[in-house]
């Protein structure tokens, strides 16, 4: 027992915890961006777009391709790195948007009046197709970008925040605020909210539902493209990344209250924090019984607890009827 207590206290330093908090929040900001795509589509169609994670995965490969074309290395000058990253972002956003639009058109639209399980099955089919396509024709290995924008800002004692982390945080927050304004203020956003509330009534009021749904997919997928750039700045990718990242993003969307934009953001941050703190301290906290191999279990356990005890999410918006 004493040994366990020692273990528990020995790893816990304020610096360590702070560092994990920073890592968790940056990871969570990417989850949040992906979560928005799930959240928006679920809000409008009540469909879990299983292929959304794979759209994000395709985005990461587009980023790899663009940066590879320009031969970026860790020592490239800022004058080259920033335009190339911007270009990669635009390319990833565009390609993901086209992909999301196509997926909706090909795999979901013909099934709009089919039994409810049918679109889920075709979503799974699309997801397998995209993963296998990348593995067959591009690569089935792990890839990372060179260490771009190296350097960090010291915060407190040994705790630092890296430039890329700042970039990830700032850009995801900017994107989310932008999306929030789009949904609140434009006529397209008004259409989306109307369709989410009551599809039939919205159609009767003259909302062009097909157009709204298409744009929902386009915007959600483009955000996944942004998330892909940010992800590649700090993490690695392979063809299966879409599934796990997608699942965690969906969890984030549910935690925050699905269909709710600030909720998705909060959910993403919470999940990122839980994951990085869990992975760092679970071994010591459980006296060596659990190791960081259980990392993915935390996300699932979090999701299950959330759905069981508060299915409408933290930012309670909808009635729990759907859960």
């Amino acid at each position, binding site marked *: 027992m004493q040994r366990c207590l020692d273990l528990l206290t020995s790893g816990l330093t304020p610096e360590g915890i702070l560092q994990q908090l920073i890592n968790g929040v940056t990871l969570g900001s990417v989850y949040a961006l992906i979560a928005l795509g799930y959240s928006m589509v679920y809000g409008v169609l009540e469909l879990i777009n299983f292929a959304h994670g794979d759209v994000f995965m395709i985005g990461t490969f587009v980023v790899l391709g663009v940066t590879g074309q320009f031969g970026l290395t860790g020592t490239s000058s800022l004058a080259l790195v920033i335009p190339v990253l911007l270009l990669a972002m635009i390319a990833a956003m565009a390609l993901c948007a086209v992909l999301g639009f196509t997926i909706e058109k090909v*795999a979901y639209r013909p*099934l709009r009046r089919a039994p409810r399980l049918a679109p889920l099955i075709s979503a799974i089919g699309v997801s397998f197709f995209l993963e296998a396509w990348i593995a067959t024709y591009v690569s089935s290995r792990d890839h990372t970008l060179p260490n771009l924008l190296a350097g960090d800002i010291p915060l407190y004692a040994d705790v630092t925040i890296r430039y890329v982390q700042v970039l990830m945080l700032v850009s995801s927050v900017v994107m989310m605020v932008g999306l929030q304004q789009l949904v609140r203020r434009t006529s397209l956003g008004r259409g989306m909210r109307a369709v989410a509330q009551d599809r039939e009534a919205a159609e009767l009021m003259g909302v062009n539902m097909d157009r709204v749904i298409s744009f929902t997919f386009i915007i959600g997928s483009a955000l996944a493209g942004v998330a892909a750039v940010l992800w590649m700045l700090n993490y690695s990718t392979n063809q299966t990344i879409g599934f796990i990242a997608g699942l965690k993003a969906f969890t984030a969307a549910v935690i925050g209250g699905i269909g709710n934009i600030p909720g998705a953001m909060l959910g993403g941050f919470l999940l990122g924090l839980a994951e990085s703190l869990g992975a760092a301290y679970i071994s010591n906290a459980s006296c060596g019984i659990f190791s960081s191999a*259980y990392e*993915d279990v935390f996300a699932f356990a979090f*999701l*299950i607890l959330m*759905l069981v005890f508060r*299915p409408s999410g933290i930012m309670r918006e909808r009635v729990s009827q*759907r859960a």
Partner: protein
Amino acid sequence: MSFVDAFVAFLHGPFGNNPFAILAWQALLAGAAYLIVRLVRGRVPRQATAPVRLAGKGASVVLRNRYALLLIGLFLPLIELLTGGYLLSVTYSIELYVLLAVGLNIVVGFTGLLDLGYVAFFAVGAYVYGLFASPQLYEITKQTTYFLVSQSVVGPQPGFHISMLVLIPLAGAAAALFGVLIGIPTLRLRGDYLAIVTLGFGEITRIFANNLDQPINITNGPNGIINIDPVTIGSYSFGNPANHLGPFQIPPFLNYYYLVLLLILLTVFIVSRLERSRVGRAWAAIREDETAAQVAGINTRNLKLLAYASGGFFGGMAGAIYAAGQHLIAPDSFQLFVSILVLVMVVAGGMGSIPGAVVGAIVVGFLYFLSPSLLYLRILVFGGLLVLLIIVRPQGFLPSAQRERELEEKEEDPSLVAATPGPAP
């Protein structure tokens, strides 16, 4: 150049290895296929398509007839024996999937609970069999355990070696209990949320199986459990490749094939009785409208748990036989993909219909196992076909008569679909 090579080269296109060139080529192919379908549709005279439709009708009659199915089931492996072993092992795998599909059909088809973690039951069954019919638990027991030993074991052996007659039902029961454990926290969830939570449970099960070699070695981690006893009856070991019937050698897969066939018959018998019983009608009521069912006096809580338990029971049995037939099990065999494959079989066959589940498992199983088995190309083709299949026939191959009626009613009056939110999945 074999057919598969030609197919691979055709998909790859003539423009080299650049992904964008391949993408462009495949988009071109897809566009051409779409155009051809658009042009052909409605322009072919009815007489020309008559043989095709007749063949489809004939196939449907045969597949709906359980005796015809049984006859095929009895003799197919014997025919396959003549063509070599590969097809036989494929057929045997598909048979296990038939058992799984009939089990999952109880949960998804009858009761309408979308379960994406069905592989957990399969895994629990396999691990129960693996632990109690192998030397694996030697370290824990630290002694020779020797009760209800399978007869093949000569002399005392380390670890447990319980007979399959006890273990297969026990594996089913353990999986059923696991089903109830998963069911309790998820009772309030419906539809897509339930799907995600069950998916989570499935993955959690696998991650635990993968890591429970520490602090106490229970599952032997990623390496899995090895040296699992084969099924034995009397002195006849199913796993012995030297078994002979007269001059004919009996491969182990053939033994297991007929054992599973027997189990399938038993399962289909039980499940079809269940479907028409009070319990089955209550399940259908829950599927159609849970709130209304509750108001009508159905104990939805217990019946939903019963659905999980029954579905789990058959999944667990399938897992036990899988473990016995393979001699070894590892967490990698219990990936999410298995759950998805079984679900696809149920949906493709027609949800809520037992012949549908059987036929769905056979058709999708052969599609999957016989598509070019190059590492990822198989999944590529499978994913594409899946989308195509569900778009062409969203109600499945052999939907249950009741469900088909429901769908037709809705098609006649689209406003009805729009007006009623419908039962979650």
